[in-house]
């Protein structure tokens, strides 16, 4: 139960196309995270799965049954909203019971399910309170509880942690992961925070401007981003991109010239790109090392952020901004010249269309 399949789903609001041909297969028990910048259509996609929006085209199936025209109430899904959307005039208990009463469930079973969910989420002491008398974290739990008591086919969570403070967000994230493990139910989770996506997801769906950019496990996305967008979106701080040109290609490796004239060896599969074509090197800030010799890429420091355990350097390489996270503490001042080494870094290569170039094995 809880297998959701989207085939070529599109959505338009008037003349504006919000989603273009989404194909997605979410397996039972999987926790899938939709991630992307605001306005990419991830919430619309979730609301469409929920049944709150109607797809303009394509097919949406739950457990093999096409549900395009099935109203939200009958899809057997439960949703946790960004604002929690708890009914302010009802007590926590009534909030939890509302959805069950509407299905004409016997009172004893309602009480039983509420008791169970309340125990699981540790909200028993607040059952008689109104949402207005609860803290943000407690409201969050009630919102999740309202979804749990329904025993849905799948849970849909729309940025459920965005209204919590940083500390609470961390602990709630861990609880959500534990909850998913215990319920082993399908969950679709929408967020714009790639850290949440990385920590929670079985699979991440990266969306941009209504299109799926890449689907994969967190580490697949981190290690093999399909394009520049995914590369820049996943990972914190985001990946550095250095523009350059590909020199004559050899077997299994080639030489690239960066803007500013620095040349370096790049691992690239044969025939992945022609010599002379422009390429982009992607390298994560954590993978760049400070070079004490003279062979590194010359850079000029603009800003130093000392965090104690690590130092974040904002630097310029021939006019291109680059971010370096160097472990430990460094006595560097803005304006000073340093040299950077990419020797130890897994370099990602992208062509002029932003697509990934296969590396040599």
């Amino acid at each position: 139960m809880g297998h959701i399949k989207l085939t070529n789903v599109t959505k338009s609001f008037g003349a504006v196309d919000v989603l273009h041909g989404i194909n997605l297969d979410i397996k039972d028990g999987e926790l899938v995270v939709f991630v992307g910048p605001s306005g990419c259509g991830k919430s619309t996609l979730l609301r469409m799965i929920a049944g709150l929006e109607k797809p303009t085209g394509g097919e949406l199936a739950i457990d093999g049954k096409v549900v395009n025209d099935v109203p939200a109430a009958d899809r057997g899904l439960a949703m946790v909203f960004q604002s929690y959307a708890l009914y302010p005039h009802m007590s926590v208990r009534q909030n939890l019971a509302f959805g069950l009463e509407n299905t004409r469930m016997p009172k004893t079973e309602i009480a039983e399910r509420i008791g169970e969910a309340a125990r699981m989420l540790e909200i028993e002491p607040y059952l008689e309170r109104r949402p207005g008398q609860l803290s943000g974290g407690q409201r969050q739990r009630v919102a999740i509880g309202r979804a749990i008591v329904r025993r849905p086919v799948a849970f849909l969570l729309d940025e459920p942690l965005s209204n919590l403070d940083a500390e609470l967000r961390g602990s709630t994230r861990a609880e959500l992961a534990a909850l998913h493990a215990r319920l082993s139910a399908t969950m679709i989770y929408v967020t714009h925070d790639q850290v949440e996506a990385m920590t929670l997801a079985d699979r991440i769906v990266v969306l941009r401007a209504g299109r799926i950019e890449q689907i994969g496990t967190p580490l697949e996305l981190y290690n093999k981003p399909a394009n520049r967008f995914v590369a820049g979106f996943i990972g914190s701080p985001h990946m550095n991109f250095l523009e350059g040109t590909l020199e004559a290609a050899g077997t299994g490796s080639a030489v690239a010239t960066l803007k500013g004239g620095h040349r370096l060896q790049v691992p690239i599969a044969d025939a992945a790109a022609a010599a002379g074509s422009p390429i982009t090197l992607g390298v994560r800030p954590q993978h760049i090392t400070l070079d004490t010799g003279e062979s590194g890429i010359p850079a000029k420091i603009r800003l130093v952020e000392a965090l104690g355990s690590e130092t974040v350097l904002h630097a310029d390489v021939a006019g291109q901004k680059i971010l370096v996270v160097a472990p430990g503490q460094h006595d560097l001042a803005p304006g000073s010249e340093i040299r950077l080494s990419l020797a130890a870094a897994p370099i990602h290569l992208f062509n002029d269309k932003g697509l990934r170039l296969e590396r040599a094995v």
Partner: protein
Amino acid sequence: MSRLAEFIFRRRGRNGWHWTDIVTWVWLIGGLFIMFGPAVWLVGSSFKSPAALAEFPPTIMPYVTQKATVEGYDKPLDLYEVTLPDGSKKVLAEVRRIGIVSQMVAPEKPTEIVKVNIAERTPVRTMSFATSNYSEPFTHFDFVRYLWNSVFVTVTATVITLIVNSMAAFALSKYEFRGRTFAMLLILATLMVPLSVIMVPLYSIVSALGLFNNLWGVILPTVATPTGVFILRQYMLTIPDELIDAARMDKASEWQIYWRIILPLTAPALAVLAIFSVVWRWNDFLWPLIVLSRKELYTLQVGLSIYSGELNVQWHFILAMTVVTMIPVVLVFIFLQRFITTGIAGTGLK
């Protein structure tokens, strides 16, 4: 007490009177007289006898000239305090008045006529409350029936107003449909049409429906008010749509969404509209007067008009019953004024 005095007499000028202090005082005291003067006069006059009402210059409080029965005269005579030529003062009863000379007698010596210049006498007056202004209508006039009619019209119309208007407001605020804005504008545009313009067609409709001389004929045309729809819609727009989405996910029907989610959350605006509706319906005069022609169906406001006949207006009864009909509205205002002010602030209406 001293803090109260300090609050009331606080001035902007530290040591003297700033000009804004003077303007404030004049403005507020003037406002007090303009607002409360008529109401105080109404209450005071409702206790006056017909004679006292006709008096000029008028007084705020009900005074009557004392009368005394004097031997040899059939009717009681008015008593006056007279300053006699020797400067002493004496209470005399007036027999008749010729020009500026009044013929008077002392009550203890009825045979001796004293002639007094009318400038030399002042009436002996005492405050007297003509409570019969109140008690008589309750016995002669069918007050209880009119009161019941008024209460029925007010309560029923208010309940239906709340239901109908909140439903319209729900649709206009929470459903996306083509022409939604146009529908709202159309409803608001009807605010520009005064009752007097639609009176005749409305009368034809009510009459054709057989509601003439029926309290429902008074109630039904008033229940859909653009003001009510507007107040409620503006309030409902502030209810987050996510609540409705959540309710849909919770398998709530559209009726349940309206009845169990939207209505309870609109309570403050409903309270405001209820107050408005009660005041409007209670004070309605023209429309009930048109629809109701049988006396036993009259509402209070129409019933009061019985006292103003073609030849004779019984002001004392009208004033007294006006005070009585004002009481419910005043009570509504006293107890619910908090809602009214917040509601008005919330909607920008007056």
